[in-house]
């Protein structure tokens, strides 16, 4: 995020630049980059790589298997709701912490009350961000113009382009 602002500041220079429209579009999509960054950070807090569907108790699941065939007889969208499916809907998935945090409405408390929000340590004071090559981990000097990830050499760039570039955003 810091990087985005500094980049845009750099692009504000007086010199007019001509760049291909495709590239301009890619550069302008800082939204996507921030989004990708946030989703990466979010992924660090997840328990499982694949999000599981809401789970049933074992015996429920076994009995649902038979019902599956019943479901398929109906065209999509007009699924008949069985009692079990309704019970499942009522058994809501537990709220995530961020939802609970929103509900608690901590912003409304007077400013002298220490809360979860105010305990966060806040942005670093001065230390600039170091960059590591996303491919091999060594310090990187180059940024991918398309997606903003870092690499350190031509070799790593090739690997990056082949395997990862823009695959996070899409």
């Amino acid at each position, binding site marked *: 995020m810091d990087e985005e602002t500094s980049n845009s500041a750099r692009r504000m220079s007086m010199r007019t630049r001509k760049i291909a429209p495709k590239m301009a579009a890619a550069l302008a999509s800082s939204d996507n980059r921030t989004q990708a960054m946030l989703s990466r950070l979010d992924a660090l807090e997840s328990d499982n790589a694949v999000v599981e569907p809401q789970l049933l108790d074992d015996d429920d699941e076994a009995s649902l298997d038979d019902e599956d065939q019943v479901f398929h007889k109906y065209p999509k969208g007009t699924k008949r709701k069985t009692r079990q499916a309704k019970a499942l809907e009522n058994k809501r998935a537990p709220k995530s912490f961020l939802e609970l945090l929103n509900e608690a409405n901590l912003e409304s408390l007077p400013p002298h009350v220490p809360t979860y929000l105010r*305990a966060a340590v806040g942005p670093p004071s001065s230390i600039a961000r170091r960059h590591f090559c996303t491919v091999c*981990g060594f310090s990187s000097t180059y940024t991918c113009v398309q997606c903003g990830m870092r690499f350190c050499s031509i070799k790593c760039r090739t690997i990056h382009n082949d395997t990862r570039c823009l695959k996070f955003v899409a």
Partner: protein
Amino acid sequence: MSNVVVLDNGAGVIKAGIGGERDPTAIVPNSMGRPLSSKKWLMADQLLSPDVDLTSATARRPFDRGYLINPDLQSSIWSHIFSNLLKITPSHSSLLLTEPLFNLPSIQRSIDEIVFEDFNFKALYVSDSPSLVHLYEASRRPYGLVSKAQCSLVVDCGFSFTHASPVFQNFTLNYAVKRLDLGGKALSNYLKELVSYRSVNLMDESFLMDHVKEELCFVSLDLPRDLQIARKPGKDNLFRCTYVLPDGITHTKGFLKDPEEPKRYLPLYDEALQQVAEEQIDMDRLENTDNSEDRNRRNGSKIDLTKNEFGLTNERFLVPEMMFRPADLGLNQAGLAECIHRAISSCHSHLHPVLYESIILTGGSTLFPHFAKRLEMDLRPLVPDKYRLKITTQEDPILGVWRGGSLLASSPDFDAMCITKAEYEELGSARCRKRFFH
């Protein structure tokens, strides 16, 4: 006096036992897991049994970002622990429970409900972890600074986040607490992501990655130099380690290919060892010139793809490095050293010198080798020269909180500090909670 159950309810690991004892009876993961092959969810201690194959197991945790979000799940894990591991009857015992700092009122309410309505405990005392750590450290050294000044700075690197909290007269100064949103879970997941991209896709193997992290990761004391060394090929690369993945037939747990391998870098960090190691390397070289196969095996440079293993080099120290510079990860937060500095700066200036001299590290993530030393290196430039800096790691950072709790539970005033079931029924959760001052 009836027995007191002490429950340090961490987001990652539950430590549970009877108050007054030295060690908890149960140290089990606070999660349920389901192996790929079965439909049955395994609870807490069942995940630890050696014959369970946790390959690609799915995990469910009652905690999200350090706070309880799934009370039902927590309640079933507790009931498993109470009946199978501790073998107690809740209606005849009191409970000492830890909760994270700044717990939300709605979560507190649901915890009280579980404790008094599901389990029918006689009485409840809720504490935060820093004050218990302080209590334990103060009692261990009655003539030390911590107990004489009655204050300390507790750095708790937990599973979901890290708190730097000043404690004064056994109370956590909550206005000065600073939180860094990085903990053991994020580090494991980061390592998982790196390995999955660079060598083998292990995105489903959370349990395995925890083991890899615990075995192999360490904190670098000189990052540029270590990066240079990690770049070297073959045997000169002191950081390269090979981890063998479970194959599901002969072994269901992963292991290190060569248990001595992770220690090869240690001479770099210890000057006395350096001399010896250099000689040994020379000797090895002489021996190995005529035995090329052996050399290859020792180098670990040839990763045998048929054998399902992967190598780690710079990941070993780049992962814990993120605690000290979260900005590198894209997380817009200050590092651990600055976190401590800010926490202390928020206190009254009379406390500063004492707090800097009594920093206590606790929590599982402080177990990375050289953690305290690196923290000192980072923190020293931020601290005024006239203050002394002393960082102590608890002798057992995972159990530190529990032992403090056990101590508190065996103190004579404990019964008076609790809220009883009758009071809860009379006053309700919110008013009872006022008694705990946090």
